[in-house]
């Protein structure tokens, strides 16, 4: 049981903040805005820490890619019970262009370097809603993947994952090493307790540059424009069902 789990944690704008688009439409306002760990990443960390508490795995390593502030997110993971952290330093233009492809390349390189048995990620981030990193990471590593996990059970050298799919639940059995992405109902993430926050300060965070991992961060995507969703139009009241149908026909909705 020398299993090591890598958990990816992303620093995103806090879910409760009202998002505003920048006046030049190149993105959203992030300066001075509250950030926190992506909620699905919290679920991923919780699952990894639970496995460690059951003594099924030995070490939980939290990874985040981004500028200096990414270390705050890693600290939260440490306070939840991760053993150590890796901060992959990406800033400036590289950070603006950092997307699932780049992150999965980084995670794949780290997984090989750190002799990982399991990678657990959130199913998607609440800022870009890509839902790609887990899948791409598995593909780059040629590892099996269990995405949208609502239950994870380790069985020797295999892991059983119950996935939430449109039709219901699907059970798959993956041979480790594997990639799992966490969905909402996998668990309820714990609070970091005050004593754990204090203990987390003594845990190590290694800083690594993408170049050291041999990763090329070039992006093949260009964001052209970011707009707010269209304003909700006022509705109108109708008196009868007949009028409703004629209005819908007029508007070309029927």
């Amino acid at each position, binding site marked *: 049981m020398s299993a090591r789990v890598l958990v990816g944690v992303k620093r995103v704008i806090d879910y409760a903040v009202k998002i505003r688009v920048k006046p030049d439409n190149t993105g959203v306002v992030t300066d*001075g*805005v509250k*950030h926190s760990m992506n909620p699905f990443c919290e679920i991923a960390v919780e699952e990894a820490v639970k496995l460690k508490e059951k003594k099924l795995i030995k070490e939980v390593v939290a990874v985040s890619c981004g500028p*200096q502030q990414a270390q705050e997110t890693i600290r939260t993971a440490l306070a939840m019970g991760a053993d150590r952290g890796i901060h992959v330093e990406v800033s400036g233009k590289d950070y603006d262009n950092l997307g699932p492809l780049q992150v999965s390349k980084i995670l794949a390189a780290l997984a090989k370097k750190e002799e990982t048995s399991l990678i657990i990620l959130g199913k998607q981030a609440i800022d870009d809603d890509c839902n790609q990193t887990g899948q791409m990471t598995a593909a780059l590593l040629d590892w099996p993947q269990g995405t949208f996990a609502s239950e994870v059970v380790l069985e020797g050298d295999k892991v059983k994952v119950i996935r939430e799919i449109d039709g219901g639940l699907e059970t798959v059995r993956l041979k480790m090493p594997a990639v799992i992405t966490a969905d909402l109902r996998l668990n309820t993430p714990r609070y970091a307790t005050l*004593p754990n926050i204090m203990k987390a300060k003594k845990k190590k965070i290694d800083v690594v540059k993408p170049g050291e991992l041999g990763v090329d961060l070039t992006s093949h995507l260009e964001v052209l424009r970011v707009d707010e969703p269209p304003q909700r139009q006022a509705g109108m009241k109708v008196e009868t069902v007949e009028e409703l149908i004629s209005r819908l026909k007029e508007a070309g909705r029927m």
Partner: protein
Amino acid sequence: MVFFKVLRASVQTGLRFQGTSARAATSTLKTAQGGFRFELTDQQKEFQEVARKFAREEIIPAAPSYDKSGEYPVALIKRAWELGLINSHIPESCGGMGLGIFDACLITEELAYGCTGVQTAIEANSLGQMPVIIAGNDMQKKKYLGRMTEEPLMCAYCVTEPGAGSDVAGIKTRAEKKGDEYVVNGQKMWITNGGKANWYFLLARTDPDPKCPASKAFTGFIVDADTPGVQMGRKEMNMGQRCSDTRGITFEDVRIPKENVLIGEGAGFKIAMGAFDKTRPPVAAGATGLAQRALDEATKYSLERKTFGRLISDHQAVAFLLAEMAIKVELARLAYQRAAWEVDEGRRNTYYASIAKAFAGDIANQVASDAVQVFGGNGYNSEYPVEKLMRDAKIYQIYEGTAQIQRLIISREHLVKFKN
């Protein structure tokens, strides 16, 4: 017009107006050696975050029903204990975190935002423990503080009597030395956590001579609540903070071993008073948390309710009310932060602690009342959250030193400073 834009911008940066973390400081600190700073450390921000999350997600939904029933919030207290939000002052040698008063205040303000009844039940622990923390010997600390970190136990500060509140030197509970024990007889009243405590800090008169000065006549004891002769009164039904357990306690021939005396016979008065310098800032923080909640609720309502064709926040009468409330909340916060920082720096903070407690208690009442005003008729009704705040706020001008006693202390300190 400009005001409206500013208000809108600040509402959008976060749920609260709090200066400390709504503007999440992503800029690196320009640290200069010494000098005034209004920045929290990363650890303080994290602590505040945990307390805030707990208050918002667990205390706020449960508070109205605890207020109606008056039931002691056992589940919330247990949860807060698990998160490490209680007993923060207990030294590390006894299994605690040994946090300073400033950190404790940050947590207290967040919990009070949720419900001051719950927060008072928790705060009473700190008050009861403080005499042991400042005056206990190693054996006493390990025995009585250690157990608080092993299980979620409560303790209480047992000083006030039916006939003596502000006039602590007028208490009549007697403790007579008999061999290796003290026999205690008397009546205490308004003891927070009285019915739930595992042990009490008790102040009793050991020198019966009426001419003996207060500084020598009283002794501080630690009393196990299950000692024979300790009789708990009924739970009192109060105006506000109703889920907090407040009772009278009767001591009838209660025998306390001499090992449970703090420092020595006659040292009690100074210990009892010394605790306040450390507990008044958190009480002020609690009042500030209540005031902040009142301000936030009133602001939220003012951005929803319309009258005369416009949002009530557009009417200057209401906007000015909110402005005055904001002024008071910000100043109360600065006051308790200063008082807490002073004592953490190792200095005597009596002057600042009294100012903070006096001011915060007064403004909590004003702000809560103003919040009800902003809500209008709805504010008077129990379906809306602000009437509870007004009922809860009153006690902040009374306990832990009345508003009048604070003024006595402040004037005395001020005059002494001025003369020197």
